């Protein structure tokens, strides 16, 4: 089907965009604060995963005489506590939700708006992040008291980290939305999402710091998008990376973001052409 929505007036285009983003983000903040308890349950459930990895690797580090491949128990603590924030930044409008959006007829309505639906996704989840970050602070303090992380970042590392977590957010959004386009052709996308999640788990630094992986896995990870949403932001803060590799990392992230959104644009165009409306 073709869609002919009224184009935005050129003069106010930028302002409309800024307005739209600001309002959507404010709405997200207000809404999600209402559901603080639900958000907290969710976040606490997520903490279990890194705590398990952390405990297991710290135990191995101790039994190995203090470290595994140069990472001490305190180093693991730092890695996995920062992990919790990065994981939360990685929650985006996920691919499986496209199925819901299409099935429930939400998408038809969104197509009629003068703005691409992805802007809502980016803005809403970005706003939600502010709530998540505030709720995350007590969790981080609690985990730090229990596990004593070794963390002494420089000003540059902090600055790169703050950029990198938003880069991770944008990159994962682009990738997930692109995979979500599969839902226009099949209702069995779940298999593909699971493959994606498994690859991400192993190749991003989510399961273990990539340093612990065999050499060839590390090389492979450099050429895939996963590492730039997970391992790189964490390492930028805890990994004592050189200035050059910090900046190169940001550049790689930027490149992946632009590339993924270009792919998304094409995929979306094909998908909408294929779309036959549900509901309305």
């Amino acid at each position: 089907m073709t869609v002919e929505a009224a184009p935005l007036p050129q003069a106010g285009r930028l302002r409309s965009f800024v307005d739209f983003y600001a309002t959507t983000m404010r709405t997200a903040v207000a809404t999600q604060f209402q559901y603080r308890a639900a958000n907290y349950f969710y976040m606490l459930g997520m903490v279990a995963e890194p705590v398990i990895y952390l405990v297991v690797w710290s135990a191995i580090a101790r039994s190995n005489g203090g470290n595994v491949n140069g990472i001490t128990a305190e180093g693991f603590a730092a890695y996995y506590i920062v992990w919790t924030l990065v994981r939360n930044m990685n929650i985006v409008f996920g691919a499986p939700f496209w199925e819901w959006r299409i099935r429930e007829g939400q998408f038809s309505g969104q197509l009629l708006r003068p703005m691409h639906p992805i802007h809502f996704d980016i803005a809403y989840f970005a706003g939600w992040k502010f709530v998540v970050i505030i709720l995350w602070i007590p969790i981080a303090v609690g985990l730090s008291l229990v596990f004593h992380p070794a963390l002494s970042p420089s000003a540059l590392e902090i600055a790169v980290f703050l950029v990198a977590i938003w880069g991770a957010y944008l990159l994962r959004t682009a990738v997930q939305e692109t995979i979500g386009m599969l839902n226009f052709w099949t209702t069995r996308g779940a298999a593909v999402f699971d493959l994606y999640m498994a690859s991400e788990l192993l190749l991003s630094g989510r399961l273990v710091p990539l340093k612990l992986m065999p050499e060839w896995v590390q090389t492979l990870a450099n050429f895939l998008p996963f590492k730039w949403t997970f391992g790189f932001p964490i390492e930028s803060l805890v990994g004592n990376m050189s200035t050059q590799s910090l900046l190169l990392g940001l550049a790689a992230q930027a490149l992946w973001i632009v590339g993924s959104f270009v792919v998304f644009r094409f995929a979306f165009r094909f998908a909408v052409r294929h779309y036959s409306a549900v509901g309305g």
Partner: protein
Amino acid sequence: MNAIRIGWLYLKVGVMNELQYRVNFFVQLLQSLIQVGTGLVMLSLVYSHTKELHGWSEAELLTLIGVQIVLGGVIHTFIQPNMERLLEDVQQGTLDYALTKPQDSQVLLSVRQVRMWQVVEMISGLILVIVGLTRLEQSIGPVDVLAFAFSLAVGAVLIYCFWLIVTTGAFWVVRMEHVLELFEGVYQTGRWPVGVYPGWLRYSVTFLVPVAFAVTVPAQALTSRLQLQTFLISVGFAVVLFTFTRWFWHFGLRRYSGASA
């Protein structure tokens, strides 16, 4: 007896329902393969850096992971679908339909749903258990197997009780759907011997969320490290928890005022 008959009837209907969606079998198969695959990768990573983890060798831990996956399969097939449905029913007011039926309400809401294809998860876990066992040096006798089967059943009862207690909380706090995530997260602690965890966490996953009893005890039975005392404590705990769960369910039910009528 009546409870078993009703359970059996619902099971038959549930299986017939699921048989209509055969492609789900393959989706489930792929998901199980991924789950087992990532578990094996983590295992080989850990044991590429160490010889034993808190006294557990690689083969023993493989058995433990297998047990965790088997029990996960039981949860996903029988327990979780029913609890999810209950949460939804409380939110939407459709619980009235179940309550007005002339049967014990707890029995009814515990057997209504079955996700048969999750059986694949149980089988894949069982394969891991068997592979792990063949790699063990000591052999297992029929007593070990019996103790294993029995403690696994006790584990399932414990998890069921925990789930029902939490779900009953929906009578007070209506929005509980994130509890699912919380449980899935905590359940992953069962992949590792409970001794690895620091004290506070060990006690929470043993008594608060009885994952340790449910997973570690059966795995201990298979690896011949189960002590009679631990076994008896877990049985006793199950009896107490089940009695409490039943009381708590009726207590919560009195709070429920319905939302549909």
